[in-house]
């Protein structure tokens, strides 16, 4: 009997611990995220998608704009996954590189702008919550995540130019470097 009681209380204890963790996240994370999401959703709806398309066309010309500025802006404005669609303004050869950069931008900015990728936010929030639990401010973490991301994502995008050229040779195809305007 004693064993059963111990077992039962241990069993319940597991779920109580889980519940406490959940409560911590719900009260600690959800309210702020929700307010940010409301604001960001509204700002984006008011600015509109069309304006970012205009910028996108300008940004295809050089690597820095292509793999750092444009993906950052697209991630901020369009979020995951629609930020990836801005690659359509690139020549075929650069699309994989844009994808490589933009998909990372949908993660590294999520510390400060959670609206970009709310369904995968727990990577950041999980770790940030641990930092907060120690009584530290998570803002430096979020800021560094974004800034390091800006550099690292650019590198990841640019390196993809070279891997694309490599795979092209491997597969014996050549992708267009020129942008052909579609009707």
């Amino acid at each position: 009997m004693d064993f059963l009681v111990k077992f039962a209380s241990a069993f319940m204890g597991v779920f109580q611990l889980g519940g406490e963790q959940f409560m911590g996240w719900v009260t600690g994370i959800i309210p702020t995220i929700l307010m940010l999401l409301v604001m960001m959703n509204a700002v984006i709806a008011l600015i509109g998608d069309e304006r970012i398309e205009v910028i996108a066309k300008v940004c295809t010309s050089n690597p820095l704009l292509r793999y750092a500025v444009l993906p950052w802006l697209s991630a901020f404005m369009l979020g995951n996954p629609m930020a990836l669609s801005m690659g359509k303004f690139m020549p075929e050869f650069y699309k994989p590189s844009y994808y490589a950069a933009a998909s990372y931008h949908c993660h590294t900015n999520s510390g400060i702008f959670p609206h970009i990728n709310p369904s995968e936010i727990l990577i950041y929030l999980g770790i940030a919550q641990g930092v907060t639990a120690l009584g530290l401010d998570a803002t430096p973490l979020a800021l560094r995540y974004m800034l390091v991301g800006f550099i690292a994502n650019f590198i990841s995008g640019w390196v993809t130019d070279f891997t694309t050229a490599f795979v092209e040779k491997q597969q014996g195809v050549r992708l267009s470097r020129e942008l052909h305007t579609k009707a």
Partner: protein
Amino acid sequence: MSEYRAIRVEKGSGGFGGPLTIQGTEKKNKVMYITGGGVAPEILPKIVELTGLEPVNGFKTSAPEDELALVIIDCGGTLRCGLYPKKRIPTININPVGKAGPLAQFIKEDIYVSGVTNANISLADPAEAAAAADAAATTETAADAPAEAEEKKGGIDTSKKLSEQMAESGNGNMLAKIGLGAGKVVATFNQAARDAVQTAINTLLPFMAFVSMLIGIINGTGFGTFFSGILQPLLGSIPGLLVLGIICSIPGLSAILGPGAVISQILGGIMGAEIAAGRISPSLALVGLFALNCHAACDFIPVGLGLAEAETETVEVGVMSVMYSRFITSWVRVLLAVVFSIGMYAA
């Protein structure tokens, strides 16, 4: 036409949506699968055999959307599961995932079915097959003549509120215009709030509950001490995180680890809990963020390139190229994070 047969697909255990009746046509004659990093799903042979559709591996190549009769995915509940329903392409998810992810509002019973196994797939009975064939034919003609649908605007549209229709027709008086203008801003914020709450309910809360339970088990069973014994060397030191980042981004493995960023999110939750418990130093937080996510979006390459309207050969090259570049740059990213962690939360 007769070579394509209609099948009936029902939801599997724990699944959502359906039953769907899938009928190929001369034009819509392909089934695309974007599963497990390019591994054909178990249900594919049966579907191909029954329907006569041509299978297309979405990881290797792609097909024009208007040729797709069906898409098979294995999404864990984030993007892909909503993407094709949004485009109104019938979608089978072999994972039992319901309305979830940022595109949850497009996941409806008439276009999406999940948790599907071989047992849920059968030939449709003739009556249903005929209906599906008709529907397939009408969607084709409807796509050809979108102008007709536009013309319906004239009368009172029952699908819209009167205020919205006034805004569209544009001949309201001054007062109505001001009212509508203010109303639009309020409505925009209101919709933004509605979307935000939906996101919280559909994606944030479920994931938090899931990971919380895992953490409860890990901490409550004494398993935690054992478990962090294993993870500590990986999550708790710079070389460990570097190794983790490189392993996660190995081409091929990276695509399997990707879906829904589930693994990254679990590891993030665990690492946070370990930091909170004082077992891992907070100065490793930034390095962790980069290491846990080196393989980000490797499962999503064909779809992402599809969104960028890439041509078929670009997708073929791009899948390999991005996986290689992820592998090549993973250690660079982690080391950059190490450098930029200097001075953060220094003990």
